[in-house]
């Protein structure tokens, strides 16, 4: 039902029950916000979106107030602007204000608000309370001094991810965002997914930046730096580099990385296909033994950390396999040290990924061999952009290039791994191929590409009925398992990923106001899938060649030893 309200002396149409903010935005009236995010419960904490309603003494926050027919609203009256300006000035009085040195310089919502509200002097005396920077996490840095307490991180961690690693503590001027017991991040139940970084308007939460170290490595003659990139990367950098969001930049990426100084550039899709094949072997074993089902995916390190911490009872169901990044790391070191007569520690294996949790995963104890890490550095999309700028690479003038053999190819299924439902889709395709000896008649599985909370797909292969599922958030997992247990649902494989939307919306992705960017990335991945002739992992030509040259096959001891992982209960606060 539509109602009329008056805004800035003009009539606009609003939907009954919607907030003033949503009505304003639909009608092209921009009111700034700070704590508001579309997918989170409004809290009305920042008060920046306040508007004046005739007849009301106080200003009203448009993000929380539902529209009513009688309302006469002023969105940019002098009183409203003065209030907004004062609020930002108050924040700035308690903010370090070291913008030129800040990781978020140029990308900061507070900075942009200060600019757009025309703040030109410090009206209030700057007086910041002392706080310390938390560097304890291998993936995240938390600097409370820069926190403006908008609560977005608290809400995304609790409401969307379902982890609740962050909460408000203390009162009054000492109010802060902190982990349980105000302890360091590495002791908390943080799963390092990095979604809090994605929503943080300032640099209070940011990834642990490793660009300086990478730059050193690239110019160190004594080592052999190589890089392998996640399939989400080629579709994730376009908008930051000035192209259309979601454009496939794979061929440019190879050139960029090579020009930066990486000696070899590999495609992690290879390892994904490797992993899918192993997963199928493992699944068939469990199916035969009639135990350990449903099999739960373990390719997302943030999910694995969450399971280890909060759902240790489920660990036996998790596939005891490493993530593609770690499989790739081991493959690369093994291959290069054999081929180029290098010591494993001379090969510096870098992983390029849209994920912060992989920074954590790379330094797990079991991800080492003889004291050498399988993956030495993990660079997120944001760090890649920084490296591109640092090295003065003009992306528009890059020749198209290809990755290095032997890890140069991936199937379309491997690429699907970067979006939600893709893991399950790749699994279904591979299982069908394994049991039937041919591909599905329509490999595009729309049921796993919807935006539903829990996606389910059933199919018949080898004369048996199979069901695979993909869930959007941890909160849906236990109810789903309950349904499987009670026999309501027939499902043998569940895909779990921490980030909503999957890796295309990973915690290490480029910061972007446009929350739609990741659906563009997803779209490109689906388009690429349509065009790719190799749509099942087992048909990856590079992988088949690898099996042949090493005289191994999926499920063999050698192959299994490359991707074996052990997950143990992890005690955290």
């Amino acid at each position: 039902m539509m109602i009329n309200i008056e805004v800035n002396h003009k009539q606009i149409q609003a939907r009954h029950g919607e907030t003033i903010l949503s009505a304003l935005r639909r009608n092209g009236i921009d009111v700034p916000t700070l704590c508001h995010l579309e997918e989170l419960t409004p809290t009305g904490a920042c008060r920046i979106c306040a508007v004046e309603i005739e007849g009301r003494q106080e200003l009203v926050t448009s993000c929380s107030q539902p529209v009513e027919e009688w309302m006469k609203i002023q969105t940019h009256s002098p009183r409203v602007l003065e209030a907004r300006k004062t609020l930002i000035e108050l924040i700035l009085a308690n903010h370090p204000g070291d913008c030129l040195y800040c990781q978020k310089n140029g990308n900061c919502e507070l900075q942009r608000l200060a600019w757009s509200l025309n703040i030109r002097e410090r009206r209030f005396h700057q007086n910041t309370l002392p706080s310390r920077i938390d560097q304890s996490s291998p993936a995240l840095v938390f600097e409370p001094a820069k926190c403006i307490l908008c609560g977005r991180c608290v809400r995304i961690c609790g409401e969307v991810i379902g982890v609740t690693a962050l909460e408000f503590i203390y009162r009054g001027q000492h109010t802060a965002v902190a982990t349980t017991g105000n302890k360091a991040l590495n002791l908390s139940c943080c799963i390092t997914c990095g979604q809090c970084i994605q929503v943080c308007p300032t640099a209070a939460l940011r990834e642990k930046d490793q660009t300086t170290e990478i730059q050193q490595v690239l110019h160190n003659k004594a080592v052999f730096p190589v890089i392998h990139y996640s399939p989400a990367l080629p579709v994730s950098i376009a908008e930051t580099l000035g192209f259309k969001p979601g454009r496939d930049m794979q061929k440019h990426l190879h050139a960029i990385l090579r020009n930066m100084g990486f000696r070899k550039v590999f495609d992690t899709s290879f390892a994904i296909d490797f992993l899918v094949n192993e997963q199928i072997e493992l699944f068939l074993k469990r199916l035969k033994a009639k135990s350990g089902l449903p099999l739960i995916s373990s390719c997302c390190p943030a999910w694995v950390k969450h399971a280890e911490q909060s759902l240790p009872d489920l660990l036996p169901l998790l596939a005891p396999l490493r993530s593609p990044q770690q499989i790739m790391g081991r493959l690369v070191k093994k291959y290069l040290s054999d081929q180029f007569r290098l010591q494993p520690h001379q090969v510096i294996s870098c992983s390029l990924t849209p994920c912060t949790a992989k920074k954590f995963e790379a330094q797990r104890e079991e991800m080492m061999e003889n004291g050498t890490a399988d993956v030495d550095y993990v660079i997120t999309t944001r760090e890649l952009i920084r490296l591109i700028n640092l090295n003065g690479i003009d992306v528009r003038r890059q020749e198209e290039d290809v990755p290095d053999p032997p890890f140069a190819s991936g199937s379309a299924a491997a690429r699907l791994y970067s979006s939600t439902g893709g893991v399950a889709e790749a699994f279904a395709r591979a299982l069908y191929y394994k049991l039937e000896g041919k591909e599905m008649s329509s490999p595009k599985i729309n049921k796993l590409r919807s935006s539903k909370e829990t996606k389910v797909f059933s199919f018949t292969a080898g004369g048996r009925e199979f069901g695979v599922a993909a869930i959007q958030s941890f909160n849906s997992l236990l109810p789903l398992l309950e349904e499987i247990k009670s026999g309501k649902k027939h499902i043998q494989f569940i895909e779990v990923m921490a980030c909503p939307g999957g890796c295309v919306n990973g915690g290490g992705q480029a910061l972007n106001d446009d929350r739609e960017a990741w659906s563009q990335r997803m779209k490109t991945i689906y388009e690429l899938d349509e065009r790719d002739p190799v749509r099942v992992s087992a048909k990856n030509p590079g992988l088949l060649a690898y099996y042949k040259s090493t005289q191994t096959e999926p499920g063999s001891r050698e192959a299994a030893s490359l991707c074996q992982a052990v997950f143990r209960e992890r005690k955290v606060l």
Partner: protein
Amino acid sequence: MNGHDHDILTKVLTAGLRTPVPPALTEEEQWHLEGLQLKRVDRPLIFVGTGSCGQIAGAGETLHAVNAYLQLPGIDAAVEETGCKGYCSMEPMLDIQLPGKARLSFGHVTAGDVPEILDAVLNRTVPENLLLGQYPQDGLENWARVPLVKDLRFFRLQQRHLMERCGMINPRKIEQTLATGGYSAFLKTIFTYRPAQVCDIIDAAGLLGRGGSAFPAGQKWKSAFNTAGNDKYLVCNADDADPGGAISRVLLESDPHLVIEGLAIAAYACGASRAFITISERCGQAINRMQEALLQAAGFGLWGNNIFGSGFDLLISLKITPGAFICGEETALISSLEGKRGMPRFRPPYPTQKGFLGNPTVVNNIETLANVPGIMKHGPAWFKSTGTATSPGTKLVSLYGRTMNTGLVEVPMGITYRDIIYSIGEGIRDQKQLKAIHLGGPMGAFTGISGLDTPLELDSSRDMAEGIGSGSMLVLDEDQCLVDVTRHFMDFLRDESCGKCIPCREGIRQMSLILGSITGKPGKEGAHETLERFKGAMQIEGLGAVIRSTSLCGLGRNAPNTVLSAMKLFREEIEEHIFDRHCKAGICIHLRTFIIDTEKCTGCSACAKKCPAAAIIGSPTQAHFIIASKCTGCGICFETCKFGAISML
């Protein structure tokens, strides 16, 4: 309570409620009831007020002395602990009732005074010393030449409806409450009226919320009653968050059953079958008394399932809270009851629609609920006969500060502030002049001498800055510094804000920084700091307006009241602090300057030895000097000097 008491009281309570009408009391039972009502005592009964204010003043020792006295041979008397009469400046208080005689009341009774008073009274003479007066009662003989307590200046203008039983009965014995009419209104209500009718009666009485916002209680209940939902909740906010506020504490300690009764009626009216009473963990005695009272009331069947066979179920839980100031805000209180952080939520939806766990919830202040039994018992017309047309009834006021009498007083609405201060409070101590009063706690505002004839009223349309708010009245005399008081309140709010919204968290912090710079030490100031101080002072009013118009909840919206009212009333004094760097009252220690009169100084060095800042120099037997830049203004030298050589500028 023994079985005999139980039977009699059940008869009293249910009289007229059910058919067949229960048999009337026998003569023996009537005689026994009078004993429970404390009308008739068989042997001397000594009352000691052991509320926590009495305890602080030494009531524990007084009680100990009374017990020791009762051990003496030949003494046949009993002792009864009561709550608090609200006369804090007279604590510890001791009452004595002899068989057939009116009850006598004494104030300031220390342990040493006990034998003397008891000796005299038990021998039927009245000692003049420490005597306050007597309470006349039908059928009891008055003492000759002893004034009536209600004629004392502290009590004369008070009208005690809520505090009728406070300090008179033993709150730990439900039979005394029941015998004096407790719970009769509740039972009458659930057997006579439907919930909607109760809402109408309260609405007709015009009962306004006493917690500060003055919202009509009947409308609030109706809103919850009319909202669909099976689980509805009632929350009694029984937490005095204001520094200096004593309303909840006195009611809980002295008459907990009045609160339970009001709560039960309210729950019935708004359709709630679950109720919470929230008490701050700091109020140990209030918690104990309420716990005991709840157990005793449950034992009598006054709450629980199917109360007295009426079909009305009510479960009451006592919630002990950490006592955060912000939890006086209803949405924050609900959030903390849910086990979450006590942070206010935006409204709408209002708690009466979506409150505790998403269910319709009414949050009422303890004083609001304490008014309910009286209205149900005597009717709305009786309630409206007290007070003014727009705000009927009485109001509890915590009177503290520089008046002669301090404590909790119950006054009819419409009484002027002047009457409260000069009649009930008996004026200002030490013949000083009144400077201002501060009403309504940290979120309240100053009222100057010109506002003394304002009638005390609650008005929801009026700004909180102008009224009594939650009921604290701080009286300030000429020796007080307004800037210092303002800064104190701002610092309190700075630490008690929930920290959620920017204007409240950062704005109040900035406000207290500005006030801090105004009262800060001038000696250490460079040109930059001076500029910042001036800049800050210029921002106060604009900042106050923004905090007021953009804050999420009432705490933030009312936080600038004190500062803004001080700016209006005492601008000169504030400007003196800013421009002259001088505090006339000598309260802001950083602005104090001490000098040594070299004529009078004997060079004894006593001041130099005691100075914590080593700011005093001089050779022995020679005149000493104070180094102004080192001096912190603490005034220890001033207090130390025996020769009056040090003076404050």
